[in-house]
């Protein structure tokens, strides 16, 4: 694909949507913040021109809806202008969340693969485990998270581990479901071929089922890593955690630091897109090394 095509087919549509959202956001910010500003002006006996008034609605310290540029400058300041060990640095908070996300994602992926292998090879597990796995994901994570944190806290485990447990809980599911599908993806004819060679179950597993499942693994890992991040953030909410994107969100809500909340939200979204992109690129590299048709 040439750069021109990339520009036309990928960047342009995305950029258009971003512009529309930003425009709506500014309009929203004006209307949300205007009543408070009007109130403020009246009490201070200030009269301002419409343009001045518009500017004021966009520069309140604790607006109801911060304007995009306020969020952007907050993100920029707290990402690039602070030392990464500072409590106000978004990089620091993102790293705290990222570390438990990755730990939870690692365990979740491993657990998901093990469950899938069990389900594909043991008939009893196929019947008994699948309904429970699906049921596990219907339980609202917001209800489960505090229990995990409190229970683990009671036996002296706090910090990264409880958050990673919640991430594991959310991320094993897509991997388990995807890998069951992947390990079962070989066609009958490919399985028959193994049978004609009198291949052992282990040979069929390693030489056929595992390589056939690799594309499914990466697709489900993309979902899993995003879920892990959500898990880690949710895990930071009920504990009054001192660090992490979740704690930034919570602290912002306590002190009505709306700009901080939005900045933390942006940091979380950027982190999520980066993580998904990394998994996607890893998947592409593996696919190419496995002789996949370039797409």
């Amino acid at each position: 694909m040439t750069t021109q095509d990339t520009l036309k087919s990928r960047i342009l549509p995305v950029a258009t949507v971003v512009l529309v959202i930003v425009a709506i956001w500014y309009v929203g910010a004006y209307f949300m913040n205007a009543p408070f500003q009007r109130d403020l002006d009246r009490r201070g006996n200030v009269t301002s021109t419409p343009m001045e008034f518009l500017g004021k609605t966009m520069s309140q310290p604790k607006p109801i809806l911060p304007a995009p540029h306020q969020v952007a400058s907050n993100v920029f300041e707290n990402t690039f202008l602070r030392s990464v060990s500072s409590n106000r640095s978004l990089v620091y908070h993102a790293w705290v969340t990222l570390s438990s996300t990755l730990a939870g994602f690692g365990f979740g992926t491993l657990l998901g693969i093990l469950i899938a292998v069990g389900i594909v090879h043991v008939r009893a597990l196929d019947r008994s485990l699948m309904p429970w796995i699906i049921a596990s994901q219907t339980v609202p994570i917001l209800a489960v998270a505090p229990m995990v944190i409190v229970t683990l806290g009671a036996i002296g485990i706090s910090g990264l581990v409880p958050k990673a447990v919640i991430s594991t809980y959310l991320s094993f599911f897509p991997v388990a479901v995807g890998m069951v599908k992947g390990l079962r993806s070989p066609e009958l004819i490919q399985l028959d071929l193994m049978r004609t060679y009198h291949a052992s179950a282990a040979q069929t597993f390693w030489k056929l089922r595992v390589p056939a499942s690799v594309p499914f693994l990466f697709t489900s890992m993309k979902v899993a890593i995003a879920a892990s991040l959500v898990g880690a953030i949710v895990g930071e909410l009920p504990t009054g955690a001192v660090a992490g994107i979740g704690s930034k969100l919570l602290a912002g809500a306590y002190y009505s630091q709306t700009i901080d909340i939005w900045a933390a939200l942006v940091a979380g979204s950027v982190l999520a897109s980066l993580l998904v992109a990394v998994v996607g690129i890893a998947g592409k590299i593996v696919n190419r090394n496995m002789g996949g048709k370039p797409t």
Partner: protein
Amino acid sequence: MTYSVVSARNLGLTFETGDGLVHALSDVDLDVKKGDFVSFIGPSGCGKTTFLRVIADLERATSGEILVNGMTPEEARKSRSYGYVFQAPALYPWRTIENNIALPLEIMGYSTAERASRIERTLDLVNLSGFGKKYPWQLSGGMQQRASIARALAFDADLLLMDEPFGALDEIVRDHLNEQLLKLWERTQKTICFVTHSIPEAVYLSTKIVVMSPRPGRVTDVITSTLPKERPLDIRETPEFLAIAHRVREGLRAGHSYEE
């Protein structure tokens, strides 16, 4: 010396389906001698593929008896007595052509050096030398099927079972592959069981043509070909060829009731 590689006596196979019993095979008696090229021809549902799968122990007969190399099909499969070529190439897309050919060799525990020499030899047999490093998607359909034949030839099995291997290919490619297959059969001295839909293909290739008919799947005629071993493609214009083809067609017509 001509002992039976495959010998079936009163062989029957019934499936249980939602609408009752289906007689896929009924009272099949057949002997395939060493070095034979036997074609199985008949309309869909006549049991030709089922019979091949019974030989390969991919299906179990429900009555009668069948011996493959003097063993039960299961023993024969476990002693790796045959190579099987499916309707589709069934190459593993994540393996290069040579690694696809290496697959049975890896499973059967051949040494690395032995694998390399066998890959080279079988690639040469199917005229694919130089394509070993390619991935399946980089090859045409005909080349992929040739690679799958190479894979079936790579280990020491004297029996080659082929289930409509060229069915999905266009006629020009098919003619070419048929010619190559005959040469390969002559060079390797294998016994071949070949399932096909096509009368010219069956007559052109075979030393023996087994005509089958459906409901229940049974053998209606066994024709021993009088054609010489050396068969250029234009042998298909000779009266002798046409006479055999005519007999096959008659056999198919006799076994097929068009009222259904």
